[in-house]
């Protein structure tokens, strides 16, 4: 990344290091007076940083929000599945070519509601990232999602979709198996389902790769996720032939959760813990679970025809308010 690290992320990094250091000190068996005063001093420093960060989050720029959405400690789809989807059975493969690591799918329960889960998945270690293709789905990922959505439809089971991708894979392999067609068919399929669909944008809502599994009767979005037709870097490169203007483009693209809500692309913004989703993954998961259950209960009484019609109308109106 050619951009300078934004101060917000630097603060996040400092706090993480300081907290780790503090924890090590606290765990040390013998504490001398000198060490105790060190701990007290560091604790005060950490508190100060926390307060500073809280303020920094309040005035984070669009570009900083993009960095937060991409933060490597941010919880991913399977972290939320582990946190609140019971008896999760992951299903694999598109029955045509292979199994895409960048999309996960499976069956489970959320507080007594049956769900079929689909979602983009990123990796954390270097190896995982490769296996997950950095969260960039190939055609078989969308075709796996379509297969599991059809399965859900057959059994009258709602679909829960997690969106978190920088964008779909666009290289030769993806082209050779029809990435565009796969994304288009996945979207068309989502309008054919007679079961409720709840979408949660948890990190990066990256263009076609995101909307490919992003059509919902209720679309929820985490406060520091972003949703955009193009990355700020690519937008800057195309409009200004300079990636240096990415920060400026992040603002122009209106990609924050508040803007997505204002423009009608999402229905609800889920507030994150004070220092971001990565600072407290369990609390974030709890808030998402609450919102998902609320949406499922609200949509529960609707028949297949009504769901299809209202979903069609919802997206038919996009941009025409």
């Amino acid at each position: 990344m050619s951009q300078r690290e934004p101060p917000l992320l630097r603060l996040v990094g400092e706090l993480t290091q300081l907290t780790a250091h503090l924890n090590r000190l606290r765990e040390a068996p013998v504490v001398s007076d000198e060490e105790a005063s060190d701990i007290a001093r560091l604790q005060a420093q950490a508190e100060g940083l926390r307060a500073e960060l809280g303020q920094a989050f309040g005035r984070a720029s669009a570009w900083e929000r993009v960095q937060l959405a991409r933060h490597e400690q941010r919880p991913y789809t399977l972290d939320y599945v582990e946190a609140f989807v019971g008896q999760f059975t992951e299903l694999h493969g598109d029955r045509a070519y292979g199994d895409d690591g960048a999309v996960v799918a499976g069956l489970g329960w959320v507080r007594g509601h049956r769900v079929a889960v689909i979602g983009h998945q990123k990796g954390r270690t270097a190896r995982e990232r490769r296996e997950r293709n950095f969260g960039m789905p190939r055609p078989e990922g969308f075709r796996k999602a379509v297969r599991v959505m059809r399965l859900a439809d057959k059994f009258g089971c709602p679909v829960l979709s997690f969106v978190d991708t920088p964008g779909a894979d666009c290289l030769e392999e993806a082209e050779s198996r029809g990435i565009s067609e796969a994304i288009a068919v996945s979207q068309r399929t989502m309008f054919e389902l007679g079961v409720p669909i709840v979408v949660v944008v948890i990190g990066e809502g990256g263009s076609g790769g995101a909307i490919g599994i992003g059509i919902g009767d209720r679309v929820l979005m985490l406060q520091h996720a972003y949703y955009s037709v193009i990355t700020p870097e690519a937008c800057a490169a195309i409009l200004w032939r300079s990636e240096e203007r990415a920060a400026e483009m992040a603002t122009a693209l209106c990609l924050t959760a508040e803007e997505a809500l204002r423009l009608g692309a999402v229905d609800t913004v889920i507030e994150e813990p004070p220092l971001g989703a990565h600072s407290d993954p369990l609390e974030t998961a709890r808030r998402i679970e609450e919102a998902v259950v609320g949406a499922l209960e609200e949509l529960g009484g609707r028949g297949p025809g009504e769901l299809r019609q209202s979903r069609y109308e919802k997206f038919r109106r996009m941009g025409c308010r």
Partner: protein
Amino acid sequence: MPKSRLGDSAPVRSNDDVPADLWEECPRCKQFLYREDIRPLRVCDKCGYHFRLSVQERLAVTLEEGTFEPWGEEIEARDPLSFPEYAGKLVQHRERSGASEAILVGRGRLEGSDVAIGVMNLAFIGGSMGVVVGERVALLMERAAELSLPVIVFCASGGARMQESIISLMQMPKTCAAAGRLGQAGMLYVSVLTDPTYGGVTASYAFLGDVVVAEPSAAMGFAGPRVIEVTRLRIQPGVQTAEFQYEHGMVDLLVPRSQMRATLAGLIRWARGVGEP
């Protein structure tokens, strides 16, 4: 300029001498072509290169003369994000292209069959899809379903329109949904991919045709060249072409422009169950 490259009938001229309104250089074989000679299809008579057609040229070679009736021309773009320089760009492109937006839709007659037709306009902000393109495509398909008309869309687009960001992105599901409903109504949808077709358009209605047709050598793909540049990764030349998509099973037919109207007419007659001689 060596004489041999100009062909026998062409006069020898330097590039500067060529009056642009009368002569045109083929970008592939470099032959100078007398514009009148290659009208109306605009295909190089030496190497078969397909020049891009304007919307009016496309309508002229596709429909019976005087049968086109536009729909939804009143749907016009606003600037929902107040994106830098966008409002001015819209005005400028309307003036310069004489078009109201990046797609023209409506109905007309093609070899005796009534059809609903859409033609994208590259001259209007790169044929990009914002809310107006989404609206007009959805209108085209909904009205075609009501009127029981087959739909033909000539695609040509740089992708989704960045200046409408999330609003542009939401036109993808809108058009996919409309294409789905058209299919449920039992109407034929033929998508014709012309040079170039990229991005949000390929990943929505362009690849949802019952039959997907492409013009030879047309550039097409999911991500445009500049977007790929930003990823620091490479894509081999030749991957994002009509021929590659055809070889990989993503395109039904590669149809040279000289055969296009007859091919479309044949598909429409087949879908109607009429016309077997």
